[in-house]
């Protein structure tokens, strides 16, 4: 079984977001970069299938050279092989552009399953993986909180509003991962893992290698783009209630009912 995990590098979730010069993107100075947490769940899910069924795990990412570090981290966790599409002409791609690049790279790879996060926690677009599935005519099983692979089929559970759906799909398929840290609890890279990762194959590709040109993807090909960014109005600390426990409870209910009118 071959699994390709789509991995995006994003700012650490601890990051306090500031808007960069130009106002269309964030200030990336002083940012610590991490594997997007849901993609890390996808890596963990793939490695569990490596452990249980001998799956071979490839990491595929698109982004600048700094992404190598995140791919190495996934290799150190246990993935076998890495591919980075690094081309300045792909910058400014919209979701569909990114999906085209990843689909083109996947076109020359062997896979039974593609795993990815349901959303990257930077732009939260929630579309790239799903679009890859559509472009490649693959079934998409979304928001997996469990996964089983057997007899040419993949079965997941996915929570939707007020219910949990069990969904089964034929291979090859694309699975996006949801759930929480508590379920996927990604393994740490061990010291021997880190040593081994240095020798694992990591290829770099350009758009030309994939048969794409700057006009197809990147800022030129983008159908939709960010034109400005803003920070939410800073929430002001409100009032702290005074009095004994009973008085505070009474006052809180009064405020919520009469002032805020939310209960």
């Amino acid at each position, binding site marked *: 079984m071959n699994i390709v995990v789509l991995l995006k590098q994003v700012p650490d979730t601890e990051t306090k977001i500031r808007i960069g010069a130009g106002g269309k993107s964030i200030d990336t100075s002083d940012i610590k970069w991490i594997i997007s947490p849901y993609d890390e769940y996808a890596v963990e899910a793939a490695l569990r299938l490596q452990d249980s069924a001998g799956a071979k795990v490839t990491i595929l990412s698109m982004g600048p050279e700094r992404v190598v570090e995140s791919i190495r981290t996934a290799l150190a966790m246990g993935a076998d092989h890495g591919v980075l599409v690094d081309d300045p002409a792909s910058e400014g791609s919209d979701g569909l552009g990114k999906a085209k690049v990843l689909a083109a790279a996947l076109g020359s790879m062997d896979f039974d399953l593609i795993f990815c996060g349901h959303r990257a926690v930077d*732009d939260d677009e929630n579309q790239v993986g799903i679009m890859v599935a559509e472009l490649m005519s693959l079934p998409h099983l979304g928001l997996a909180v469990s996964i089983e692979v057997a007899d040419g089929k993949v079965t997941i559970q996915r929570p939707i509003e007020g219910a949990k759906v069990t969904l089964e799909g034929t291979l090859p398929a694309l699975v996006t991962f949801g759930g929480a840290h508590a379920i996927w609890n990604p393994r740490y890279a061990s010291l021997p893992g880190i040593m081994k990762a240095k020798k694992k194959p990591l290829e770099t590709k350009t758009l030309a290698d994939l048969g794409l040109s700057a006009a197809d993807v990147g800022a030129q090909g983008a159908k939709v783009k960010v034109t400005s960014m803003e920070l939410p109005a800073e929430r002001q600390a409100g009032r702290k209630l005074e009095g004994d426990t009973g008085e505070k409870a009474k006052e809180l209910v009064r405020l919520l009912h009469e002032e805020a009118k939310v209960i």
Partner: protein
Amino acid sequence: MAQGVCVITEFREGAFRRVSFEIASEGRRLADELGEPLLALALGESIDALAADLGNYGVEKVYVVDDPNLKNYRAETYVPVAAEVLNNLDPKVILTPASVDGKDFSARLAARLGAGLATDCTELKVEGGSLKAKRPMYAGKAFAWYEWADGAWPQMASCRPNVMDCLAPDTSKKAEVEGAGVEVVAGTQTQVVNIEKDAGGKLDLTEAEVIVSGGRGMKGPENFAMLEELAKLLGAAVGASRSAVDSGWRPHSDQVGQTGKVVTPNLYIACGISGAIQHLAGMSSSKYIVAVNKDPEAPIFSKADYGVVEDLFQFMPALIEEVKTLKSTC
């Protein structure tokens, strides 16, 4: 020439989900500003008889695909049908729900139509005959405005549930209903094997108007009974911090934050939650925030409209009593 605003509804178990009415209402406003008609595409099983009601929210004409194969959402059945109808209609703007299934549907449909998609939008406007969409990034730590490239029709936006204002339904208005005249082919790539409803038809966090959330300060799973009781009195959903979920006290679907649900209720009550940046990202857009924490320095207080520095085991029972009193008098 692209024309009209088209909203795509979400239908489950014999009824339109509320978000359908929200996007119809939003679509009405945009259609007026654009000087375009408001259309809807309604896919589902036994949906025909209810489709005209979309007129209550300003829809002029509904294209209906009513088919048993559309009972449960499955991308490979839904998306080709929707794409065929939309290719014929050629609308300028398409609005979809950014519900769980809606997000899946929207991304696949956009890829099939070759459309630019802004996901999970919280505000839409028209400028120079074109859509502009505002959406949160970094779980709400920032917002971005999106625009579409010149001539890149349709402009597609999925809308976050519970954010856009819903018009008061005008039951005197009915929409014209027309069969979309497309064939539904049941996909074979996926099968819904089972649907298990959450106990008691639990209210989903992303669609709840009030959320009572507990963190590590709750000390153990049994103490969430207190929050459940308060939630029941308030018609609220119960949420949790990642610590509470990681400890196994609450199901993962209850987690609020950057790697959990991003929520925007009218009222968020954080109980024994310190207010880590990842948690704040997921709930800071709530209209009102109440924090109950025994540590006056807890960062959650910097975001709270009403702060209560108390031991929650003393305070929550007192609060529940006060809410009961309120509910019995009004």
